[in-house]
Each structure stands twice: as C-alpha cells, then as structure tokens.
C-alpha cells in the first residue's frame, strides 16, 4: 500500500511538472493552433532567470519568490517577441510555424551556451524545500515536489479564473471558439493573440523556475520536456484546460507505474503506445470544442 501511494505521488509529481509546462502550450496551441517548439527554451529562460537572480539575491527563498514573476515576464517577453517577429506571419501555415520555432529554439539554446556556458549550472534550493514530509502511513513526500504540485494547481486555478472572470479572459475564449466571429464583434484578435502568447510563454518561465528545484539547469533542458508536454495537449484536446490537467496527471501516473513495473525506457514506450491507442478512441483529444465547420 505504501509503495502504491509512493508511486502514485511520484506520478502526480511528474504530472505536475508536465502540467506546468503544458499549460502555456495549451493556451498558445489551443488558441492559435501554433506549435511553438521554442516553448522549451522559454522554460530554460525561466530557469536561468532564477540562476541569475540568485547571484544578486543571496537568500534562496527570496530569490525563488522574486524569480516567479520575473521569469514570467522574461519568458513572456520572449514569447511576444517571437509572436510579433515570426509567428504572426505564419498563422495560415501551422506546420511551418513548428519548423520555424524549432530554428528559433536552436538559436536560443546556443545563446544560452554562449552566455552561461555549456555545462549545467545549479541553483540553491531554499532550506524549506529540501526536506521531506512524512505523511501518516509511512509515506514520505519531498517538499520540493509538493511545492511544484502546489504551484501547478495554483497556476491552473489562476488561469481558469482569469479566463472566466476577466474581460481579457472572455476575449481569449471568444477568439478560441470562433476567431472570425470574435473579429467581427470588434475584438482586436491580433492583440488578444499577443496577450495570450505573453501569458502562455510566461507560464513556461514559471515552469522553468519550478524545474530549478528538481535538477540542474542546462541549455537543452527544455527539449527533453517539450515533446511530453505537447503530447499532453494533443491528448487533452485543445480549447479547454481541463483536458490538459487530466491528461498531465494521467500520463504522469502511467509513466511512474510503468517505470515501477518495468524500466524507465520501457515505460516511455508504454506511454507512447497508450497515446496512440487513446487517439484511436478520441482522435480529437479528450475534450474538444464542437464545431460543424468543414475546412
């Protein structure tokens, strides 16, 4: 039983990381049908932001807290830059956007190598987040994982509320559901797109901050995560966040269980097969906006 709960928590914790990464993607992919391969490098930017802040703010706790909004802004700004310079020109060609942003991600990785050096760097975690909590039943969970879980949940709640309650959120949802109608209803879709991209990319920055708690920071840290995160969005279905939330945790648990029963590498294959099988059942993802339009 303890083992089971331990595995479950590992899975949930993997899911939380996936969710943090995928949340921003769900927004940009969902709204603009844009596959931003540089999203992983925005994560990296967030992580390096934490690293840089720690050079000036010596308290690990404070630097982490400051890093959250700063990384959000840094990654968000990068996202807006990318949107304005390239992506907006390519809206009619989603596949080409994928390739273009991959080129951008290459350049960003190299930039990180030139600025921070190829070897990975490490941040200090606040003392509060280094220990474990013992739960009743002999289960121990790592504080940093708990923190990330909390952060992921907070991000989902904040994003959901923002989408539901703020005028901007309403506009975003309107554009997701029917871009043309939104446009003729007087919504400046271009500006909404830019804002969405800012928020989506900013969330990648936040994910980057969280990842500094789990391991070293390196130029390619984003690439490893980005595919799993895209799979989350694909399987979750676009246009709604709840799909991504459910799928992130489900994939996390599946991965953890698979790893426990077999090996890490076999677990990856199991997850892939499960995803292809799932798409047989729901090719549009778990949740999808219903339309009757035929292209």
């Amino acid at each position, binding site marked *: 039983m303890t083992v089971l709960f331990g595995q479950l928590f590992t899975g949930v914790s993997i899911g939380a990381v996936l969710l943090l990464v995928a949340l921003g993607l769900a927004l940009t992919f969902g709204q603009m049908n844009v596959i931003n391969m540089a999203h992983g490098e925005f994560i990296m930017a967030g992580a390096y932001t934490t690293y840089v802040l720690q050079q000036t703010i010596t308290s690990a706790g404070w630097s982490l807290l400051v890093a959250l909004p700063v990384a959000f802004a840094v990654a968000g700004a990068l996202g807006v830059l990318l949107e304005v310079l390239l992506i907006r020109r390519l809206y009619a060609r989603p596949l080409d956007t994928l390739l273009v942003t991959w*080129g951008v991600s290459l350049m960003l990785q190299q930039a990180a190598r030139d600025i921070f050096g190829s070897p990975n760097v490490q941040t200090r975690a606040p003392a509060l987040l280094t220990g474990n909590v013992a739960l009743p039943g002999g289960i121990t969970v790592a504080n940093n994982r708990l923190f990330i879980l909390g952060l992921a949940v907070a991000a989902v709640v904040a994003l959901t509320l923002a989408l539901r309650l703020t005028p901007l959120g309403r506009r975003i949802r309107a554009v997701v559901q029917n871009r043309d109608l939104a446009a003729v209803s007087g919504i400046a879709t271009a500006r909404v797109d830019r804002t969405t991209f800012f928020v989506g990319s900013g969330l990648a920055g936040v994910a980057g901050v969280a990842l500094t708690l789990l391991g070293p920071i390196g130029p390619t840290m984003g690439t490893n995560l980005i595919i799993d995160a895209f799979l989350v969005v694909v399987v979750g279905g*676009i246009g709604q966040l709840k799909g991504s939330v459910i799928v992130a945790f489900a994939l996390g648990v599946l991965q953890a269980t698979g790893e426990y029963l077999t090996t890490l590498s076999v677990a990856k294959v199991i997850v892939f097969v499960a995803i292809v099988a799932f798409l047989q059942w729901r090719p549009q993802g778990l949740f999808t906006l219903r*339309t009757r339009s035929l292209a």
Partner: protein
Amino acid sequence: MTTVTGPATAADEPAAPAPPPPARRAGGRARAALGFAAGAALLFGAAPLVLSDFRLALLAKYLCVAMVAVGIGIAWGRGGMLTLGQGVFFGLGGYAMAMHLKLADAGPGALPDFMQLYGQLDELPWWWRPFASPWFALPATVLLPMVVAFGLGSLVFRRRVRGAYFAILSQALAAAMVILLVGQQGTTGGTNGLTDIQGFFGYDLDDPVNQRTVYFLIAAALLGLLALARQLIHSRYGELLVAVRDGEERVRFLGYDPATVKVVAYVVAAGMAGLAGALFVPAVGIISPALIGIVPSIEFVIGVAVGGRATLLGPVLGAVAVAWARTALSERFPGTWTYLQGLLFVLVVAFLPGGLASLWALRRTRRATPDRPPWWRRVPPARGGRTRTEVPAA
C-alpha cells in the same frame, strides 16, 4: 450532351493568353534521362576522381542523408505529412544492418563484443538471432521500417490524426525509440550504439578500396530511389497524393480513402530511410541513438526544406548542401553553425517555403503562365476558418 452550356460563356470571356503547350510531358522523359546520366557521371565519375578517400567517405554519408530526404520529400512535400521521426526508420534500417554485421564480425555462435564487455548475457537475446542470417537482416533493413510505418500510419491516418498532431506523434516516436535503445544497454549498446563494425559481407571496411565500393553502392541506391520517386511523383498516384495534401476531405468525397493514400507515401518514405540507414552503417561504421533521435530527425527535414520540399531533386541537393555546410562550418566554428542552422531554418521556412528550388521554379512559372501570381503572393487560406484537424464533430 447536345446543349453547349459552359463553353458559350467561357468563350465569351476575354480569353486568357493561349495556354502554353504541355511541354512537361513531351521533353520530360528525355530531360530526366539526361539528368540521371549527368547525376551518374557526377557520382560515379567525377566525385571519385576529384575527392580524396576521406572526402568521398563524407560524401557517402551525405548521400545517405539525401536518401532519407527523398522519402521526406514524398511524404511531406507531396503528401503534406510532416514527419519529424524519420530517424526512427533510419535507425531501424541501420540497427538491423549493424546487428547482422556485428554478428558476422563475432563469428558463428559468439556474442558481439559489447555484449561480452557488459557481461550481462550468456547467450544471444532471441530477437538478435534472426539477424545472423543475411537473408533475414537485409530485407529487414527496409521492411522493418515499412512495417512500423504501416502500423503507425494506418492507426493515426485512419483516425484522421494529421497536421501538427501527426508531426508531434512522429517526433514522440523518435524520442521513445531513443530512450528505449539507451535504456537497454546490454542488448543494444545503449548510448554508444553499435560501433566498431569491421567487415561487410566478408570485405574489410578499413580497406579504402572497399570503402569506395560502399560509396558506389550508396550512389547507386540514391539514383535508384530518385528514379522510384520520380515515377511515383509523375504517376496518377503522385497526383492523387498532392490532391490529398491539398484537400483531404474533397478526395474523400470523390470516393477515395485518403488514409490509404497517405499510408503508402509514409511507408515508402520509411523504406527509403531504412535503406539509407542500412547503407550508412558500412559507410560510417557505427549506428547510435545520437544519430537517429529527435535532433537528427528534424535535421533531415531541414535539408528538404532548404532544397525545396515539393520537388524531386530539391531535397537531395538541400540535404547534401546542409550536411556539407555543417561539416565545413561546425569543425571551425561550432557555435556559429548552430546559429546559422537555426537561422537557415527560420529564413527558409518562413520566407521561402518552396525552398531554393522555388527560385528556379519561379523563373519558369513566370515564363509559362504570366497570369498566375507566384506562390508567395497568392493569398493563403484564411485562418480560423479551419478547425485544427478539419474534422467536424461526429
């Protein structure tokens, strides 16, 4: 059919300048034959004369990449399937060949060197055994990738998973394959891959003469694939494939199952990548996860994009050019090459999606149909009107 309806009005319209005669058919065959002869002369005559053994070996490697590119040109350029996981098929072909060569190197009954080194195994794993026979291993280099592509392709295309979704899935397949290979170190060689391959069906691969033979083999295979690709592109199937790319639903309403059409192109591309992988192994002497993962898979696509995805020769020339530039530049300025590679991708895909071939085609289109705007000035379909997979709610 007595009333002449359409023609009446059509003729009344200010007629466009008389259409050019369909020259593409008449001279096409002769031109192609000439092109192949020139290519053969270049690959079999000029290159071995001019290039040193070292450079020729590099060219052999590039030509393998070019073979993968021919397949991507068909699947992506003609069929619209952006496959970001061709490394998987390249790898399957490569590993199948390398497994056979390792077993042949080790001699009958013996374990390959790396298995002895890790010392976890006393006997050959069951799935290695068939590869001892060349009669199994050689067909497997091509058929194994095709079978995998058929399996994945039929599953996803039939369920109308396409566009970006397919691209991501194909990339995830590459990721999963690499992780699997790395994880099973005892039987796959892990991160190192299968290295240090000595012989090729009894010939010593260290011998420059034999290396040269391998090069000729590769050049011949590339020409063969080009001929196959040309036939495919100009066949009725090739036209159908373009139709599926541009209007999958429309094709469905004409009574075809687009999934089948796509699967065929995907499987052909996979077979080409498999053959390329198989020939890559004797040329370079190694196959490893780093050569087949996400990054190499997407690099295969760069060459195709640069050369011109929808043309026959564009992918080949693009792949060779990019691979060559990579060697030339990354030796001297490793960092700069990465920037350049990224920039190349951004510039070509964003601003010249037809690749360098479109510059050439542009000259010809201008001459041929003056009333037709060049492709980049044509208005792209409005976005937003398209749902992401273009499937109505069922």
